């Protein structure tokens, strides 16, 4: 197979075999688990820093500004690390009339959901961290834990602003999960698999968005809209609508508790984009154009994780573009959009895809 240069599985197998030869297997597994866990957390933090920096630079570009350029040289590269350092050493306030246990639990639920989903992303061939045959189903299930954290945060803070923010967010996320579920289901129908690696490998001879033509493109657009809403970003950022509810559901959180919400927000953006890449844009598969063999050869030499990260950041950029251009929707308009337009449309798309698949109309 042409993609085998960058396949990580043999290497990982060898490491495992080597570890087993010098220590008992349970110890080797524990050690590997620890290393992978630390790896995930580091990746998570680094990506969050990159995303926040990107957001600040991208929005500055849209707004005829420069953006951070003082801290850490000309590009302001150390601006976000400075923020992280600050937020790590900031006091965490405990409130008098709040439910302390739930109040402290909520940010961890949000970050837990985000990390669980994050672990499912297919970085490379053989580079997936959580691999199971119902992977995409697990992603949907795990990402739903996040809304629980948001609702708890709003409720336990004992403030009216957070409560309104949380209820708004709950109503919105639960609604948009339908559309996400249906558009993901459309792609599952097309790929005939729920395993993320199988879905990606099925796109070796063409990305799903090309193979599935009309229904796939429609599902892609629906997914982007709903995913944007799911990640609580503008124009759907009602939950933390700054101009209405000061800071929405996390108004009462300070220090690293707030930092968790902040990180999760950006990582959710990345995860949304990552899942879109996996389902529609071929994951870590290089771009192949039929007939141009020379080009295809060159493309194959680019490693899979570069493809994956590149495509994902492209979608992240699209979502940022939308966020910095549109004004915010109102809660009833958000729900109208979902229940009256997106949901019926995604049902139609699902039906269309099934018909296409049954009659072999997909490429």
């Amino acid at each position, binding site marked *: 197979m042409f993609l085998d240069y960058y396949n990580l599985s043999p290497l990982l197998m060898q490491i495992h075999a080597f570890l087993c030869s010098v220590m008992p297997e349970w110890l080797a597994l524990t050690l590997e688990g620890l290393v992978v866990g630390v790896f995930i957390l580091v990746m998570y933090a680094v990506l969050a820093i990159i995303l926040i920096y990107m957001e600040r630079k991208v929005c500055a570009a849209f707004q005829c500004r420069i953006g951070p350029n003082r801290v850490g040289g000309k590009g302001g590269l150390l601006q976000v690390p400075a923020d992280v350092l600050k937020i790590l050493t900031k006091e965490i306030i405990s409130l008098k009339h709040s439910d302390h246990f739930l109040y402290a639990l909520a940010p961890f639920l949000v970050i837990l959901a985000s990390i669980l989903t994050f672990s499912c992303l297919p970085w490379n061939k053989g580079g997936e961290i959580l691999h199971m045959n119902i992977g995409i189903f697990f992603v949907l299930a795990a990402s739903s834990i996040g809304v629980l954290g948001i609702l708890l945060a709003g409720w336990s803070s004992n403030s009216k*602003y957070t409560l309104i923010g949380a209820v708004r967010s709950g109503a919105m996320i639960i609604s948009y999960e339908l559309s996400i579920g249906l558009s993901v289901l459309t792609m599952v129908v097309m790929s005939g698999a729920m395993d993320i690696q199988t879905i990606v490998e099925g796109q070796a001879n063409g990305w799903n968005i090309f193979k599935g033509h009309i229904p796939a493109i429609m599902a892609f657009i629906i997914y982007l809209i709903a995913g944007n809403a799911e990640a609580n970003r503008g124009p759907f950022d009602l939950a933390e609508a700054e101009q*209405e509810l*000061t800071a929405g559901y996390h108004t009462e959180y300070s220090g690293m508790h707030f930092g968790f919400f902040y990180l999760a927000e950006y990582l959710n953006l990345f995860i949304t984009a990552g899942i879109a890449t996996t389902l529609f844009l071929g994951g870590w598969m290089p771009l192949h154009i039929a007939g141009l063999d020379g080009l295809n050869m060159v493309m194959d030499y680019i490693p899979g994780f570069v493809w994956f990260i590149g495509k994902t950041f492209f979608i992240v950029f699209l979502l940022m573009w939308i966020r910095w*251009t549109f*004004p*915010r*929707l109102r809660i009833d308009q958000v729900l109208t959009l979902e229940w009256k337009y997106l949901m019926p449309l995604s049902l139609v798309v699902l039906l269309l895809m099934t018909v296409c698949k049954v009659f072999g109309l997909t490429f």
Partner: protein
Amino acid sequence: MEIEKITSIIPEAEISQTGETVVKVPAEKLHQIAETLLNDKENPMDFLRDIVGMDWGEEGLGALYLLESTRTGARIILKAVTADREKALLPTVSDLWKTALIKEREVYDFFGICFLNHPDMRRIFLREDWIGYPMRKDYDMNSNPLRMDNEENADMTDEYFLRPDGTLEGRKNVVFGEDDFVVNIGPQHPSTHGVLRMRTSLDGENIRKIDPILGYIHRGIEKMNESLTYPQTLALTDRLDYLSAHQNRHALCMCIEKAAGIEVPERAQYIRTIMDELQRIDSHLLFYSCLVMDMGGLTPFFYGFREREMILDIFEETTGGRLIQNYNMIGGVQADIHPTFQQKVKDFIKHLRSVIQDYHNIFTSNVIADTRLKGVGVLSKEDAISLGCTGGTGRASGWANDVRKHHPYALYNKVDFKEIVYTEGDSFARYMVRMDEIMESCHIIEQLIDNIPEGEFRAKTKPIIKLPEGVFTSSVETSRGEFDVVLESHGDKVPYRLHYRSTGLPLVHAMDTVCRGAKIADLIAIGGTLDFVIPDIDR
């Protein structure tokens, strides 16, 4: 309004004509006379411009009622006095003009005049536990030291009325009941444009009632004016509505010039008019920026500020100030225009005309903006007049109220401009009025900028000015409505009373009417389109 006409309607009137014509009516007949004037066939006095509380010392406490007919533009000033300082009572006119609901509260707060049958006699600017009435002449300035305890807000309010036998009786009215979900929006809130506080009763996301609580930036400007000489009073006008700094000061200068009989040179008139219009563009650009930001779109905010900075540059070169310019003086302006002023203004207008389409592309024609603004927060024409919502808000509801057109001052009767009037009365109309006015202001400036005559930019005046006795008024159209100055002089070098009509107070009062049934998000958008500036409300 002519004297004969007044005496035919109000036979018992005492008319004084030093300065403006003031018609003194007996307090107990005030309501009846007000009703007659409101229902007059020829000149229905349907617009209550302002109620100005007064402390005349020996004569007693009382108020001036400034009325105007929206049909003919005729104006009249009524004066009602009550001699009893301990138990000062006046009948309310809040059943005739809705704007009196809030203006009478202001008079009550400052002078302790209780309005009979007014449903809501609470303090409005000062703390509910404030001692004394600060605008009374015998108020002890040290009677209220700084208090750091949190203020409690009552959910009940008082109403007073007279029993048939003449004794006073009180009754409690409910502002917010037991099962109201009341959210405090403000005083520290990103979208209240300052330190306005709105206690908002919600039903889910829907608004049931709004009770504005003001005074978080009440700086006592009117009281301070009473100990400042006339040229000194000018400095404080810029800090009222800082986005109409120039126009506010223009109004006060006009009022003093009128009273003192100072002739303003032609050149100064030109400069003042151009500066007023530049200030209007400046304010409307900021309106656009803030409205868009309130609605969650951050990028257009920067577009508005980009052009606004150019105006500030022009201001800075000539006046030395960016936001607060201190430029108008009694008798003219402080300094001559900068040599490059004309060229820069012309360049700016050319630039603005080329980029204004960007503004519309990114926001006006955006589908989200459309659905958020159109049909939301409708204010009918009748309500607009009754509530006294002047400026762009009134014009968006179909009420042609532009002072520049109906009571021209400076050079506005010499230039050609359209009064922008929309009839829908919704948020979108209020937005469009301002956007169109930007272009209209450009048009006015273009007519004047090349024709500024040579000559003095300031008439010679004495450093200490004494005005003759009497009541003097002047009104200008600021960026957000009619701004009136009411000056009572007792012949001293300091004013006896100097009152400013707040352009924003009626707008904040209208929030309750406009927002009922709307969503929280609409509250923010409506607040943005009503376009008020809080320091101007609280003064």
